[in-house]
């Protein structure tokens, strides 16, 4: 506790450090909210300047950007159906329908509170159990366990956003297939970058780099939303959502307390694992909330619990992601890799010794992440009362801005026009997917986890001498695979039986 107070004092004791904290908070939130430009963009811009900064301030700044950035993406997800980052995608499922029902303030309020609660809980767990959790995660989680976790995650999240179970699975498989474009993870053999069909030859060196998930997300969510609304305008059927400013009541938060607790646990343990992080956490949190909720059937139609589950889980992953970095020197994602870079710029090596050699730095970082999540409540409240007013602007005035932001975001990723083509094609495909009951979110989930899953599978096979049953010889992998299989079987049974009950009722 003394160490935490010491860190807090160092954080707010000087005007300079407090200013960096505040700028990181506002910057992270703004960059998280702009589609295509995310906290990684801000991190990449700021990284060179950290060479001249005090290392404690630099690491603190990036930690604050991380916490605020994960929350920031929820705002556009709720207001415009455009997730600022992949981990905010499940927030769209219920956040945007709430906006359409005139409950945008409530949805943003829930995102604010739950991001803060998830982040604070994660920071507390990080402060108390870094060593323990890091050693467990690293010793117990090898490639087979990571593959098993991805399998489990896909098994329980596959039907999210789809009309039928099969369409959900087909969407995920489509995402997995798209993820294979590029190079194979074992030997780097180029795949799907050349070939021919019906006598037509094709070859593209762009495809050797693979299809990035950011243009796909922008296409499926932002572009397809603009197309859908534009068509509604042309039909004269578009209704402008009301810009309501209500904050959720305490009773509403109390009603979803178990969902929050569940999402904190899911988010924290997903966040610890390198590469898995906040995206799988958000999808798992959402799918489990839907599974256990009394209002499961209302998910996807504007259920507050859906926003709560997704936003609690993704922010719970932030503190957890710092654990392998600080305790073992293993960055789990792009932003934590940048923090690793800051350490190296300043001639420091993260790992167990950092708690002894640079205790001040560690505790200022912990305190900064804790207070950043607390500050999200204040800043988020202000946003709830202000940003919602954007809904008063006619959509036809906003549409060009949304499209241009998405265009520049997709292009800026790798400075390739092909990414913008991919985005617009995904937008058109996404528009028709919506009409036919397939899930754009499922495709995105498959795309994000596909490469990671294939890589983990290949390493597992090499480790286990190509014995598929080897997964069942490792307890954690076996449990996760069995749970995944159970989830698949129960969802198939409930899909068939559910429809039978429905049919009987209709008869």
């Amino acid at each position: 506790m003394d160490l935490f107070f010491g860190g807090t004092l160092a954080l707010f004791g000087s005007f300079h450090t407090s200013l960096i904290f505040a700028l990181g908070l506002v910057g992270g939130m703004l960059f998280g909210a702009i589609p295509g430009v995310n906290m990684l963009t801000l991190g990449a811009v700021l990284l060179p300047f950290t060479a001249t900064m005090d290392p404690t301030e630099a690491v603190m700044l990036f930690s604050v950007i991380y916490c605020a950035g994960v929350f920031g993406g929820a705002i556009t997800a709720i207001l415009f159906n455009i997730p600022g980052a992949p981990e905010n995608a499940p927030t769209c499922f219920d956040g945007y329908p709430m906006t359409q029902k005139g409950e945008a303030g409530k949805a943003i309020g829930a995102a604010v509170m739950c991001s803060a609660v998830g982040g604070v809980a994660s920071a507390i767990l990080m402060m108390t159990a870094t060593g323990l959790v890091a050693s467990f995660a690293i010793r117990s989680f090898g490639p087979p366990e990571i593959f098993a976790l991805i399998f489990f995650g896909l098994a329980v999240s596959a039907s999210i956003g789809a009309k039928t179970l099969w369409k959900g699975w087909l969407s995920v498989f489509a995402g997995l297939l798209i993820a294979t474009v590029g190079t194979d993870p074992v030997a780097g053999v180029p795949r799907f970058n050349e070939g021919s069909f019906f006598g037509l030859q094709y070859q593209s060196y762009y495809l050797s780099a693979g299809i990035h998930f950011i243009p796909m997300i922008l296409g499926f969510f932002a572009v397809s939303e603009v197309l859908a609304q534009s068509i509604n305008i042309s039909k004269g059927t578009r209704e402008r959502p009301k810009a309501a400013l209500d904050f959720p009541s305490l009773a509403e938060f109390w009603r979803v307390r178990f969902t929050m607790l569940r999402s904190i646990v899911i988010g924290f343990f997903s966040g610890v694992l390198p590469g898995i992080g906040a995206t799988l956490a958000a999808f798992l949190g959402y799918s489990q909330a839907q599974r256990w909720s009394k209002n499961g059937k209302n998910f996807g139609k504007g259920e507050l619990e859906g926003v709560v589950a997704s936003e609690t889980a993704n922010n719970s992953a932030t503190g957890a992601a710092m654990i392998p970095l600080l305790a073992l020197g293993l960055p789990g994602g792009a932003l934590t890799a940048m923090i690793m870079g800051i350490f190296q710029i300043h001639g420091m090596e993260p790992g167990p010794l950092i708690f002894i050699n640079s205790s001040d730095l560690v505790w200022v970082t912990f305190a900064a992440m804790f207070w950043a999540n607390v500050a999200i409540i204040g800043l988020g409240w202000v946003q709830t009362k202000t940003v919602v007013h954007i809904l008063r602007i006619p959509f036809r005035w906003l549409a060009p801005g949304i499209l241009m932001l998405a265009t520049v975001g997709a292009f800026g990723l790798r400075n390739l026009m092909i990414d913008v083509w991919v985005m617009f094609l995904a937008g058109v495909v996404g528009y028709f997917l919506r009409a036919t009951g397939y899930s754009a979110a499922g495709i995105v989930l498959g795309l994000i986890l596909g490469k990671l899953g294939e890589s983990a599978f290949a390493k597992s096979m090499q480790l286990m001498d190509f014995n598929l049953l080897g997964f069942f010889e490792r307890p954690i992998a076996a449990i996760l695979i069995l749970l995944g299989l159970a989830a698949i079987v129960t969802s198939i049974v409930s899909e068939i039986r559910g429809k039978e009950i429905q049919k009987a009722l209709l008869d």
Partner: protein
Amino acid sequence: MAIAGLAYSQTRFFDEDIANFSFGATGWPRAICLLIALGATCQLVYKLAGRGEEAEEPSSATGAATQDGGHRLAQRAAIFVLPFVYLYVTPLIGFYVATPVFIVALLLLLEVRSPLVIAGVTGIVYILILLIFTRFFYVALPNGRLDGFYEFNNAIIAIARTGL
């Protein structure tokens, strides 16, 4: 099924053995193709068995289309086609020339008729892009391949970065 079949057929172009990995480069993509075929079969059986809800509900994308006149259909088609025209011409005439034209065309398609609104929205979006992405983030947006347009785009970039 068609997507699975097409993708599976394309895997023959990279069917290479990999040392220390007996599944090769094609193992994973082919497995996914088979899973897609399986999923599609289940969906088909499910629908044929009369359990697909969507069989009863007309698609919103096509249902209303038949009720509208040619003008509306052309408008909707243009909404889909316009972004691709923009993508095609951007590398030729440059982002800074193509973008204002695209924004004005989109606003007209969305039935905005007030010249003040069209000018205002186009100006605000254009200036924000110049300030945020060209001036501060140095995003290297396409500056056109055609003579004249290349110089014009570069001039706009130079103006946006004045003083830096």
